[in-house]
């Protein structure tokens, strides 16, 4: 029953069930990608969409598809996968199923750095924020990790979460002080703070892609070791993995993923928490399956939210971050109720 100490009742899902779930998640993601390229504020007939992809003619339809929707979809897939996997890593690392990238100070660090860049240095474009956001997020997480006991997290996983909240709160205080005195920065910040995929384009994608790809690879490499970690440090050691190294790697991967995602799209909070959590009920507690499923389900949620925002908000659009929770949370609440979460 304890939320904190126990990993939620570890249920073994049968492997055929897991394969089906994973395949379904893949299909949903595929549909989401197609929808994200095909649908938008500007109605483009499907034929033109295809033509824009295969035979670029420079028409405004083609520009919308190729220069706006394609980069945006690509970014959505990567950012979504990053958030989902980062959530899995954070939850495994802190042994707290409520952990998410935001809990460990990443969003607060990015926000503080971005607000400083806006207010003190006059940076205005998303491509300009990215490095500040990465640096802020990375710095905040490093501090949290050190305060949280570094590799010795096992003695009290709660400590990491408390450290994250403390650092996050201090940084948030700083952020609000800056924006309350600087209405220009506040005006930009309120748009960044909802989180969006729009207007990022390929430059932002290429800036964060190495971090996201590296983080995903690192995460994939420690999947089995994370499983042994859940058995406790002694068991883990006797099974041939070094808990200190595994935790360090998981932390590194988590920070690369969440810092990259936040830098690219702003603080999109809910995905990193809800997707891994829901995934645990569907594919069981095996970290490898959890991460694989989250890497497919999280971008689906993000892209579906993004497309919904574009369609509902016509002729403008609703920010991705606004819609993500509106789409995801009712589903999440339904799952929690339906599956009688044994948290």
């Amino acid at each position: 029953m304890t939320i904190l100490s126990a990993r939620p009742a570890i249920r073994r899902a049968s492997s055929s069930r897991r394969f089906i779930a994973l395949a379904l998640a893949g299909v949903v993601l595929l549909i989401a990608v197609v929808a994200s390229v095909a649908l938008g504020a500007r109605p483009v007939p499907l034929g033109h969409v295809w033509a824009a992809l295969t035979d670029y003619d420079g028409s405004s339809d083609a520009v919308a598809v190729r220069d706006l929707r394609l980069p945006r979809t690509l970014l959505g897939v990567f950012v979504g996968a990053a958030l989902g996997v980062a959530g899995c890593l954070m939850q495994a690392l802190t042994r707290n199923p409520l952990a998410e990238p935001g809990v460990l100070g990443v969003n607060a660090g990015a926000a503080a750095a971005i607000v400083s860049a806006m207010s003190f240095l006059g940076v205005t474009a998303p491509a300009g924020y990215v490095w500040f956001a990465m640096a802020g997020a990375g710095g905040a997480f490093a501090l949290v990790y050190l305060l949280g006991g570094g590799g010795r997290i096992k003695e009290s996983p709660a400590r990491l979460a408390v450290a994250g909240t403390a650092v996050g709160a201090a940084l948030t205080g700083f952020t609000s002080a800056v924006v309350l005195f600087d209405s220009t920065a506040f005006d930009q910040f309120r748009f960044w703070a909802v989180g969006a995929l729009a207007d990022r384009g390929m430059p932002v994608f290429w800036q964060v892609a190495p971090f996201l790809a590296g983080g995903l690879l690192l995460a994939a490499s420690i999947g089995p070791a994370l499983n042994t970690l859940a058995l406790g440090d002694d068991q883990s050691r006797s099974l041939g993995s070094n808990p200190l190294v595994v935790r360090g790697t998981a932390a590194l991967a988590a920070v690369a993923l969440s810092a990259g995602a936040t830098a690219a799209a702003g603080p999109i909070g809910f995905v990193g928490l809800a997707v891994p959590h829901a995934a645990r009920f569907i594919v069981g507690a095996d970290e490898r399956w959890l991460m694989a499923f989250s890497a497919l389900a999280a971008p689906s949620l993000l892209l579906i939210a993004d497309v919904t925002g574009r369609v509902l908000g016509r002729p403008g659009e609703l920010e991705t971050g606004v819609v993500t929770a509106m789409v995801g949370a009712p589903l999440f609440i339904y799952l929690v109720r339906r599956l009688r979460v044994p948290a």
Partner: protein
Amino acid sequence: MRSAVLRVGPVSTRFAPRAVLAGLLITLVAAATAVYSLTVGDYPLSVSEVLATLSGHGDRASEFAVYGLRLPRVLTALFVGMAFGMAGAVFQSLSRNPLGSPDIIGFTTGSATGALIGILLLGGGSLVIAGSAVIGGLVVAALVYLLAVTDGVVRPGQLVLVGIGASAVLASFNGYLLTRADLGDAMQAAVWLTGSLNGRGWEHAIPVGVAVALGGVAVLCLARPLDTLALGDDTAGGLGVPIERVRRALLIGAVALTAVATASAGPVPFIALAAPQVARRLTRSPDASPLVAGLTGAALLALADLAAQRLFAPVALPVGVLTAALGGVYLVWLLAAQRKAGRW
């Protein structure tokens, strides 16, 4: 020595000496901060002048400064801090999560939504804002509670998860409202959302005071069953605790405290989260008692408000900026100190 027993004739009670000591110490800090806050301002007074005024021997000017301006604000700070601290302690032990706070059942984001609607759509004054904030918070808390009930039982874990979902929806709705509002209104909303004690008078201090007194008594009466609940539902049930009733009463008490405090000062961040954590470390007990957590909250908010008024004088910061910074830095320091001492 973890606990001691006090016997007076036929009555006996168990208490933890360290908690009592810590409680007294924190009360002392809060009182000293309060008295010092009464001395500073545009019309400086000495400590003896303040004490003279409080005992009814002051001149007109100091009476106005103390009773008209400073005392209501200081009292609001103390009461609001106490309310948040107690509510936080209750939520953290109910949810058995050190990150538990009234936020987790969506109260804070709900009240923020209410206030945003009050400011941006109804264009209201402070009474409208306070009212819509409380209504928003209560509606969301009730909704979360109802959604979390399955088979007539509320599991704390489910409550937290549903709360997180609801909070996420509302937080993004709040973000949406803020981005669509006119910049001036949005700034006003941002100040309210930060939490501020600027310009608080008796009309703010008295309601919170009453609520803290009532809610405090209720929460304290339930402190023992709350301790027992920490052993797990089965054990607590076996020991004769009416689990559901106790849990519901505690939830209602904590939400009511949060509601009144939020109406007076806005959703001052971090007190509900940090106060029980700080109290827990000061008393070295696994669960902070709501009373000590409340006192810690009071001291924390009074200190933060003093700093918010004086640090950048004559510009008065909203206290929320400082509670976050102060509480965060203090917790960081505590963690670092414990790390050095090799505890944990």
